[in-house]
């Protein structure tokens, strides 16, 4: 298939153009050998299939980061599988001088290329007048097309150019590419600007306009005091929306999957396969689907902040705060995303150019409380924290929930600081970030972004969550010898066959079976280790189950305590848990064991899918193992100390 490459500086509207041209016919992968996103889009022009590759935004073809290396590797090697037949270089019309640097580099390579002058609307609003004729004279080998990706002008002209047959390639891998030494690059760059300056003065004329809108807005948004207050207010709105608005579709998904499972139960024959589907596969899929509303909503709002240009300001005002912890302003977005799910958060660290800062962000991201912890938090808080008003207006339960999130954030920063001490050689930390002008978001971009993120979650995390729920089903459905059968026969069958009595009997059988399954044995096996934290073997089972994915905790507790249906009424489970007693007669779930369990869930690395993503992003098993290790130690110690304090 014919390949066309899309190059350009960051913030030129390159990705908008890409989305405009390809719509949802996109595929995100990695460039061979590196974990740099490869966005490919497909389009058909005059019956011809074309692949458009959106390269990471760069300022120059000389590689200074992993992203830039990709661009260099592809265009310096005609044998590279991604070497394009045609190239499009997108330029921001308001900033031609700097944009022309990359353009002249690619122009000099002799590739067949189009110069796309984008954001022409912003340019004319800001008083710029661009003389296309002069530009054409300066670069006779390039086709010049004016576009406005936001409203779609110039697109048909561009498509037409993309569809024409290319002339035989005049590859002119000039001496430019050989300049791998820094001094040579500096000299070349200086020479290029000398060449660009007279071109720009011929092409661009500018009427003086008033201080632009962006600068006026920035007086407030990056103000030393108001900047932070506005940011905090935006955060508050985001989290309120994510947790309140998302709960409705989450309830529907929950109801949908459980009623689908019970419907399947009535139509499928009884047996192992049916049990696998109903108790293993469907809850597994349901456990993935239920997080989609929260993830979609969070990324919807983050995408808007990104699209409007506000995110660059967040990075700007938080950089100094993050630096003492070995992080930088760019770590804020991944950490924010981790509040929905660590997986897209960890993938978002790719924008951090320093490997040390990126690794640190990856290692601490799972400490930020993700949405999978929320059901566990809600259940346990409801169980052990009284619902009373403190300090006049604050609900104690809400306060504890807030404290758990805060504990996650604070521990993430502290652990980052500790990690920083381990790096012997301090890597140069670079912070050079262009602050784009504010603009209204383009909804198609926001939509595509949300769609991509949800897709990544469903396919990357989903696969693993599904596999684990099947393994858990095996561990819970089978046991050594025929113990499960033997003990379940001891449960007294109901004398009166009322519907209620039958359900009661069935749930008791399930509970006894689980106790004698492999999972039950594992729970009892680890009991000596978790007793100091205030837990018994029943909690042990749920702990083991939730090492795969945290949200499994509530479901497995429900089975152990033979609560029939938690989906309709979590109060049933809560009531049951409230009356559980230890051998010495004290309640099993008291303030101490409840808080200890909550702290355990704040810290423990209970998500296989995240580990798999960390492995993929760091290209080594070392880091996921380090992560499991340190978070496990933190969870155990934290829970132990909490239990001792409140006992």
């Amino acid at each position: 298939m014919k390949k066309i490459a899309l190059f350009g500086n960051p913030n030129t509207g390159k990705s908008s153009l890409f989305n405009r041209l390809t719509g949802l016919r996109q595929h995100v992968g990695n460039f061979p050998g590196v974990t740099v996103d490869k966005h490919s889009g497909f389009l058909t022009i005059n019956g011809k299939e074309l692949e458009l590759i959106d390269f990471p935004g760069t300022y120059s073809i000389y590689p200074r980061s992993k992203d830039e290396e990709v661009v260099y590797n592809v265009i310096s090697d005609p044998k590279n599988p991604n070497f394009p037949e045609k190239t499009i270089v997108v330029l921001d019309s308001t900033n031609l001088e700097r944009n022309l640097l990359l353009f002249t580099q690619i122009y000099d390579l002799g590739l067949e290329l189009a110069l796309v002058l984008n954001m022409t609307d912003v340019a004319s609003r800001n008083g710029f007048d661009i003389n296309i004729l002069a530009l054409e004279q300066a670069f006779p080998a390039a086709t010049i097309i004016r576009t406005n990706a936001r409203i779609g002008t110039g697109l048909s002209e561009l498509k037409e150019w993309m569809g024409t047959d290319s002339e035989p390639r005049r590859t002119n891998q000039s001496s430019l590419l050989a300049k791998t030494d820094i001094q040579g690059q500096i000299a070349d760059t200086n020479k290029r600007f000398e060449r660009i300056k007279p071109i720009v003065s011929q092409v661009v004329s500018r009427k003086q306009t008033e201080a632009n809108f962006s600068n006026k807005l920035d007086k407030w948004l990056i103000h030393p005091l108001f900047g932070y207050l506005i940011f905090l207010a935006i955060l508050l709105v985001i989290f309120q929306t994510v947790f309140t608005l998302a709960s409705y579709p989450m309830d529907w998904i929950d109801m949908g999957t459980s009623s689908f499972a019970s419907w399947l139960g009535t139509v499928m024959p009884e047996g192992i396969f049916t049990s696998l589907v109903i108790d293993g596969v469907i809850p597994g899929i349901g456990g993935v689907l239920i997080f989609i509303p929260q993830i979609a909503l969070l990324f919807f709002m983050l995408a808007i902040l990104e699209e409007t240009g506000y995110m660059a300001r967040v990075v700007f005002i938080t950089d100094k705060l993050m630096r003492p912890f070995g992080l930088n302003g760019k770590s804020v977005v991944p950490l924010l995303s981790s509040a929905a799910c660590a997986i897209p958060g960890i993938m978002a660290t790719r924008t951090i150019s320093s490997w040390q800062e990126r690794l640190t962000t990856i290692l601490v991201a799972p400490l930020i409380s993700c949405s999978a912890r929320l059901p566990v938090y809600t259940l346990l808080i409801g169980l052990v924290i009284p619902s009373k008003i403190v300090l006049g207006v604050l609900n104690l339960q809400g306060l504890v929930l807030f404290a758990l999130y805060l504990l996650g954030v604070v521990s993430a920063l502290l652990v980052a600081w500790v990690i920083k001490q381990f790096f012997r050689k301090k890597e140069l930390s670079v912070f050079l970030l262009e602050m784009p002008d504010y603009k209204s978001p383009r909804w198609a971009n926001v939509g595509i972004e949300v769609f991509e993120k949800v897709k990544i979650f469903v396919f990357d995390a989903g696969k693993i969550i599904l596999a684990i729920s099947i393994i858990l089903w095996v561990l819970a459905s089978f046991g050594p010898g025929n113990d499960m059968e033997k003990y379940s026969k001891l449960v007294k069958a109901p004398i009166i066959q009322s519907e209620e009595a039958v359900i009661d009997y069935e749930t008791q059988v399930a509970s006894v079976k689980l106790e004698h399954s492999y999972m039950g044995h594992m729970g009892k096996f680890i009991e000596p280790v978790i007793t100091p934290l205030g837990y018994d073997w029943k909690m042990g089972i749920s702990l083991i189950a939730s090492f795969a994915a945290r949200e499994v905790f509530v479901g497995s507790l429900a089975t152990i305590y033979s609560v029939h249906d938690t989906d309709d009424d979590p109060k049933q489970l809560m009531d049951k848990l409230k009356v559980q007693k230890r051998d010495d007669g004290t309640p099993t779930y008291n303030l101490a064991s409840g808080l200890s369990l909550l702290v355990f869930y704040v810290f423990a690395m209970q998500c296989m899918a995240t580990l798999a993503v960390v492995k993929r992003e760091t290209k080594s098993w070392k880091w996921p193992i380090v992560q499991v290790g340190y978070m496990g130690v933190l969870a155990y110690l934290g829970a132990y100390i909490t239990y001792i304090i409140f006992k």
Partner: protein
Amino acid sequence: MKTLAQIPMHQKTKVLGIVESELKPKLLEMGLYPGKEVEVIFKAPFGDPIAVDISGYTLSMRLSEAALIEVE
């Protein structure tokens, strides 16, 4: 020699050169070549990083990076 890190807000100045460092080529590529007019237009809370207007576009950088840029 004065550097951009020492220039007060809203005072226009010109780039003279960039201190030899790993960042030199990167800063050049961002358009900070000798003769370029620059102006600090914002400072983040606590004074660092700063935002610099480079004839029409805004680049933010840390003071440690601004200290590599020699100005008039």
